[in-house]
């Protein structure tokens, strides 16, 4: 199927090409580093080369005399500029330990890349050159790079805390039932998995620029951020700047994947120093410094135990996590692993017999935070890998085992053991479709043929069925998790005098194609051309209310807000139309942009005439305000629960450990699709990010806490030649909880992919006795797993 240039209404459901593309394809789009800002000073940040050290002295004098250098600051110099420490919005338990930290370190540094000084200079090159002239004396302390070592408190990262454990958070449902389940289980499995640290590596490095208007007192921050609205509030609190004096703009943003869902030291430094110097201050991240100083993802040790009855039905699950916080808490560091707490039973019908415990620990590595999926890929990996282990243990085929445990379509809406209500689903439908698309039976036959022929290339088939708990989030649920903000989204719809439409959204796109999708929703509802819909976003002056883009929330929350604002603006238009037509409102119908009296289509007024009337206000009903405008803030009643099944087929060479992905089928169900072209794009990208965790990527730290994969030459973001094409399919099970019937899709691919890939590798190597392969499953790792299974006889 090809894309469509300008399809006819209805637009929803068509593969309309994106309106965003032409500026991006021609170099016209401006990312933060592209903005011309006359008179800006360039900032560079000196970063700690030690993972853990006391700063004994800093001499900035040699740097400050260099050509072009305007000022050099240490953390000590700037301490008076901060009204509050760096923000942490998710204090997950009342006793959580959250040591205060500031944009530049004072006292101790706690990871390689921790900022210790900032230079302002006339050019970027001068600023960076000057970093080398700053002399810092460090008194090194031991590094902590292993989570179990961190838990032991052998070395304290933050000595004043007396422990490295930041918190222990528990979710226990039916403790007696759980104990009974494990006591009576016909089968149990106990698995330990490591979620390696990952680096988001959005193609656009971070960048920001603070532009003051010293006499007006106002400050504009341009930043490569996913969250201009949240950033504005947090910057105001951290700097003590009145909120009305801050404006935050996210220009074109080159990907985020959670890493730009953050309030960063450099943003706060640019703001503070621009105010202090009364001139613009800008900063652009270099890739290597970004690898060290931009938040990383995952970083967990997972222990999962399943109890099943004699039929293979799950009767209890225990989960114990150790989660790597890194050196400090960032915006939502502590909460990320807990987003998975509700998903360790995956798509299965588990009775109330569940125990989850997570301990967050400080280490001397870069802080962790959200990365595509944030907690949910980890949970899905654990349950889907454990299900395959259970299949092996019980001798039940992994497809059949999943089918026996699925929540059935007639059980929806389904109240889970956690109390959360799953909106809709047809897991067997998605699995069955994926099996057909991949040709499952033929593959199993081929696998058998290969196994009996005794070759060294093994075929493996891996299945992963998932739920993506997304559309973050109902505000009251967030409150129950101690998150310090809501989960609503705002939308305003205005119809202008010439019947064009302005949509203002609080969602903040950075590659997702919001402008296209929003224009399709509006065009269908109002009967206008999508090209006549202007979409305003990503600027707190244009779109003052918003909670931005993460957690696959933009459509399921922000798009629904637009839909509700359209209802509201049409209600007003209907009242005006009825007044103009001297008809009763309830007798009017609205179709293709025209109000008409039901049954007499000639008695009609187009929306354009109503819009102009609302503008002139010459003949409006008594007491009615002029103009057609409506604002809605939508707080979702529930998460949205997209789901699907991914099947990965691999060829593993037992001689070399090399894994080739032969085929990858993704069947995803995100409810009604606004634009299938965009949905597929999200799945493709998500799958490859999940596959990359399974096969390629790992942020590797040596024993001294040095990141040894801090460039794109060392950190293996896959290239086109490393990955397969993806075969996508979908089923459509609308969400009953919102009027568009939509669910999120941004994280689904990443959630489904990693377990499908590793299940496939383990399936391939099962005859050799391999029961697990750690991520990333590099040839060395796979080869070592084969050798270990053979008792090291190679």
């Amino acid at each position, binding site marked *: 199927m*090809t894309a469509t240039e300008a399809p006819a209404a209805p637009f929803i459901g068509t593969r309309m090409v994106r309106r965003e*593309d032409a500026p991006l*394809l*021609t170099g016209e789009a401006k990312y933060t*580093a592209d903005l011309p800002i006359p008179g800006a000073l360039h900032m560079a940040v000196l970063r700690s080369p030690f993972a853990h050290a006391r700063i004994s002295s800093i001499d900035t004098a040699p740097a400050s005399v260099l050509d072009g250098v305007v000022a050099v600051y240490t953390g000590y110099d700037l301490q008076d500029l901060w009204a509050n420490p760096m923000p942490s919005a998710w204090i997950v338990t009342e006793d959580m330990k959250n040591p205060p930290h500031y944009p530049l370190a004072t006292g101790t540094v706690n990871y390689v890349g921790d900022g210790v000084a900032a230079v302002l200079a006339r050019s970027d090159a001068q600023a960076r050159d000057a970093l080398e002239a700053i002399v810092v004396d460090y008194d090194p302390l031991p590094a902590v790079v292993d989570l179990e070592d961190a838990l032991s408190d052998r070395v304290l990262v933050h000595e004043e805390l007396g422990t490295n454990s930041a918190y222990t958070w528990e979710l226990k449902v039916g403790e007696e039932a759980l104990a009974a389940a494990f006591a009576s289980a016909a089968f149990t499995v106990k698995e330990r998995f490591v979620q390696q640290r990952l680096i988001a*590596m959005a193609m656009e490095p971070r960048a920001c620029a603070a532009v003051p208007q010293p006499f007006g007192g106002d400050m504009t921050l341009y930043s490569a951020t996913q969250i201009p609205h949240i950033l504005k509030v947090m910057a105001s609190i951290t700097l003590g700047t009145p909120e009305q004096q801050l404006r935050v703009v996210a220009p074109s943003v080159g990907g985020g*994947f959670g890493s730009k869902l953050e309030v960063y030291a450099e943003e706060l430094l640019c703001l503070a120093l621009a105010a202090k110097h009364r001139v613009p201050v800008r900063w652009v991240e270099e890739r290597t410094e970004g690898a060290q100083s931009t938040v990383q993802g995952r970083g967990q040790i997972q222990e999962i135990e399943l109890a099943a009855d004699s039929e293979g039905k799950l009767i209890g699950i225990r989960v114990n996590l150790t989660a790597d916080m890194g050196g400090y808490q960032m915006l939502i560091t502590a909460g990320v692993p807990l987003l998975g707490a509700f998903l360790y039973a995956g798509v299965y019908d588990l009775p109330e017999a569940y125990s989850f415990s997570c301990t967050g620990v400080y280490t001397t590595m870069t802080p962790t935070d959200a990365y595509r999926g944030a907690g949910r890929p980890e949970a899905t990996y654990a349950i889907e890998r454990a299900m395959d282990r259970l299949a092996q243990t019980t001798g039940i085929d992994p497809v059949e085992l999943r089918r026996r445990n699925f929540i059935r379509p007639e059980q929806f809406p389904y109240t889970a053991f956690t109390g959360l209500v799953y909106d809709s689903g047809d897991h067997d439908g998605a699995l069955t479709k994926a099996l057909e698309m991949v040709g499952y039976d033929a593959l199993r036959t081929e696998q058998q043929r290969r196994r009996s022929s005794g070759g060294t290339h093994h075929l493996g088939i891996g299945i992963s069925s998932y739920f993506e708990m997304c559309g973050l989030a109902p505000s009251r649920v967030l409150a129950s998790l101690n998150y310090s903000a809501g989960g609503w989204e705002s939308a305003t719809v205005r119809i202008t005098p010439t019947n064009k439409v302005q949509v203002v959204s609080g969602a903040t796109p950075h590659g997702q194609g919001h402008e296209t999708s929003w224009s399709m929703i509006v065009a269908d509802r109002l009967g206008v051309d999508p090209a006549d819909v202007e979409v305003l976003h990503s600027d707190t002056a244009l779109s003052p209310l918003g909670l931005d883009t993460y957690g696959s929330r933009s459509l399921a929350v922000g798009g629904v807000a637009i839909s509700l604002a359209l209802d509201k603006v049409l209600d007003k238009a209907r009242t005006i139309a009825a007044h103009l037509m001297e008809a009763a409102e309830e007798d009017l119908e609205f179709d293709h942009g025209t109000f008409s009296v039901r049954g007499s289509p000639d008695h009609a007024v187009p929306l354009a005439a109503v819009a102009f009337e609302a503008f002139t206000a010459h003949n409006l009903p008594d007491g009615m305000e002029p103009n057609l405008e409506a604002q809605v803030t939508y707080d979702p009643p529930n998460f949205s629960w997209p789901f699907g099944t991914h099947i990965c087929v691999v060829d593993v060479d037992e001689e070399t450990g090399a894994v080739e992905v032969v085929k990858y089928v993704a069947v995803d169900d995100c409810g009604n699709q606004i634009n299938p072209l965009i949905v597929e794009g999200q799945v*493709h990208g998500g799958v490859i990010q999940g596959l990359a965790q399974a096969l390629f990527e790992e942020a590797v730290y040596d024993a001294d806490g040095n990141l040894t994969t801090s*460039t794109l030459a060392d950190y293996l973001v896959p290239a086109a030649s490393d990955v397969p094409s993806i075969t996508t399919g979908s089923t459509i099970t609308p969400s009953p909880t919102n009027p568009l019937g939509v669910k999120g899709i941004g994280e689904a691919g990443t959630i489904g992919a990693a377990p499908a890939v590793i299940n496939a590798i383990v399936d391939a190597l099962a005859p050799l006795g391999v029961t697990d392969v750690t991520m990333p499953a590099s040839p060395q790792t796979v080869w070592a797993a084969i050798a270990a299974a053979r008792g090291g006889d190679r």
Partner: protein
Amino acid sequence: MQITTTVNGVEHTDEVEPRLLLVHYVRENVGLTGTNIGCDTSSCGACTIHVNGESVKSCTMLAVQADGQELTTIEGLADGDVLHPMQEAFRQCHGLQCGYCTPGMVMAAVGLLDENPTPTEREVRLGLEGNLCRCTGYHNIVKAVLTCAAEQNGSTVEINA
């Protein structure tokens, strides 16, 4: 040092530091910011431009090495308001999301088809391995390049989708 280049058909003469990278020259001296910088190890390809018609990562050359050369950047690819067939193929195939790798990816793809007008899917994947994309998983980029090639050759595209 003084250098003279022709960028997208327009001649520029500038005084540059010997250490200035070509990508910084294009962005800062010529003022064309469509060419993006995504790394510091010549790994990502975001800064790919054409030098005398050949695709080059512009972070791998010094500005002084471009003295007297013809450069084409992403801004020079379209014909007025009409997108280059490769740009149009990326648009039709949804071969971009955030757009940051896109200028380099498109320039590399144009260079690829110049060298091999009828590539297989594998040849496209290998030909673009110096250009990283984090959004698309490459699926639709590969499809766009094959579509562009097919349109130029009057054939049809087969990609697993």
